[in-house]
């Protein structure tokens, strides 16, 4: 059996480990556009602030490929031919596959902005190369303009905080982290980062660039030395689309992560997932999802049986000392009347159709996974003790029978 994996990041690693849990001998070839040992992509901001190193940010140990008998090829795939079961590499070389995984991830979305070609120092923030480019570009007196106040933009800001003269973040949305926070929670995060000296300009966007100056729609002008475009990402789904496979926003797969093309699988940021909290197929470009999909694909490629029925968006991040965790969707009834806590933290929960559909915790994030499990398991809240559940995450909110099952305690009288 010959497995070819296009990609070398989280979903690809998940697939290698998934394949090897079933098939110890089949040939595995990973084709990577980035000439790097697999690295933990979200750590690029930690690399900037010195909390990790090139070596420590390896996603798997140095012997990962040899141990898994996987061959890593540095090249770009230009074409998939599902009929002849081959992929074409940038140099024209063909690689045959028995099972193919597309784990091509996503690429930065760079909107059309007038005059952007006049900006000398500009980058996106998604790859190690981007981080290295920023590292080279910044000095103590650098003024940085970041377009996008989402997870990527704010992590970039954290990464270079105190290493540059100023950081200004501009977003079209009226709040920071618009995809993961509600307006009132976002205000707390905004206040926190503004206290740290990061300037936020919201509900505004760039009208035009002229060299080292940006003119915003509001008429404001911002002088900068380095521009970081962190507006968002889009799935790398082109190879599947050109090969005739179904693509919506991302690559369409079944529950076994197989695309509509025979023997071709897809996983990670390039593929769609079923979001249990919205009931829709969507791209959930988050790392745990990429690993789980990759592993599921790998197991199925190797002849095992595994289904990935769906998941929920979830994000955990620290931002200049403030920790926040979020999960699910905020479509539903808020359960906390006063979500802002006296210590500056925040807790809110959303109930829909009798289940926990989403939550946001800022500050005290301890044991938050208990909430995530209730959300993902769609546990009816009626089976839980709601007062205890909302007080703090605790297993005491579950029934005695559930607790005994979870902790393995022998039943009474044993």
């Amino acid at each position, binding site marked *: 059996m010959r497995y070819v994996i296009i990609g070398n990041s989280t979903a690809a690693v998940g697939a290698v480990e998934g394949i090897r849990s079933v098939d110890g001998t089949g040939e595995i070839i990973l084709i990577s556009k980035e000439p790097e040992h697999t690295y933990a992509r979200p750590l690029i901001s930690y690399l900037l602030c010195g909390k990790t190193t090139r070596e420590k940010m*390896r996603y798997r140990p140095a012997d990962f490929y040899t141990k898994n008998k996987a061959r890593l090829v540095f090249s770009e795939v230009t074409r998939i031919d599902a009929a002849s079961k081959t992929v074409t590499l940038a140099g024209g070389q063909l690689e045959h596959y028995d099972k193919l995984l597309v784990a091509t991830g996503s690429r930065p979305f760079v909107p059309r902005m007038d005059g952007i070609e006049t900006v000398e120092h500009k980058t996106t923030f998604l790859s190690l190369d981007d981080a290295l480019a920023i590292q080279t570009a910044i000095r103590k007196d650098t003024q940085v303009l970041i377009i996008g106040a989402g997870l990527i933009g704010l992590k970039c800001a954290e990464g270079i905080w105190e290493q540059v003269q100023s950081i200004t973040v501009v977003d079209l949305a009226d709040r920071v982290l618009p995809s993961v926070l509600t307006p009132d929670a976002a205000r707390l995060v905004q206040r926190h980062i503004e206290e740290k000296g990061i300037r936020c300009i919201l509900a505004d966007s760039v009208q035009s660039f002229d060299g080292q100056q940006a003119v915003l729609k509001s008429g404001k002008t911002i002088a900068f030395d380095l521009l970081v475009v962190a507006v968002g990402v889009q799935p790398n789904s082109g190879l599947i689309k050109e090969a005739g496979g179904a693509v919506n926003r991302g690559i369409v797969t079944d529950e076994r992560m197989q695309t509509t093309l025979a023997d071709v699988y897809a996983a990670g940021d390039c593929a769609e997932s079923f979001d249990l909290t919205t009931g829709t197929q969507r791209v959930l470009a988050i790392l745990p999802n990429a690993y*789980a999909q990759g592993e599921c694909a790998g197991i199925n490629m190797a002849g095992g049986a595994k289904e990935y029925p769906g998941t929920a968006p979830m994000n955990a991040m*620290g931002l200049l000392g403030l920790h926040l965790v979020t999960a699910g969707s905020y479509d539903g009834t808020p359960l906390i009347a006063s979500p802002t806590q006296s210590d500056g933290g925040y807790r809110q929960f959303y109930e829909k159709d009798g289940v926990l559909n989403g939550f946001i915790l800022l500050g005290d994030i301890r044991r938050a996974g208990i909430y995530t499990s209730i959300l993902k398991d769609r546990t009816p809240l009626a089976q839980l003790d709601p007062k205890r559940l909302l007080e703090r995450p605790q297993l*005491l909110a579950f029934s005695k029978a559930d607790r005994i099952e979870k902790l393995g*305690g022998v039943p009474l009288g*044993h």
Partner: protein
Amino acid sequence: MKRIYVNEAWCLGCHLCEYYCAFANSPCDDMVKALKGVSINPRIQVEGGEGIHFAVSCRHCEEPLCVKGCITGSLRVKDGRIVVDPERCVGCYTCVLSCPFGAIMPSDTGVVQKCELCVDNAGGEPLCVRHCPNGAIVFEERGAEA
């Protein structure tokens, strides 16, 4: 593999397991010196209220969501145990958001900590188990696992 199991019917809620955990994971070989004046942050934590008590620590799951979701690769399965490499953890707390038991938590340094069954610090017999006065925490091979 031997795992820790907890029987809430026998838990007295005395919290001794928490103190022994903190001692086991301290660099000190004298419990008094290790814990005197210290606000402990143990890897096993007693929950309770209204006459019910039980200790919660890592279940060393067969399908560990913390390991699979770890953004750095610093959580891994080693001989069936789930262990963390504190040198590589950056404290993002994705694992805290993933663990259904609330059994992995920030340490005093900001990276995460969890029960590693005392293999590296107390010779493989978890101190919480050895010192539980009522046998509410046991360390057993129960088989019937993949």
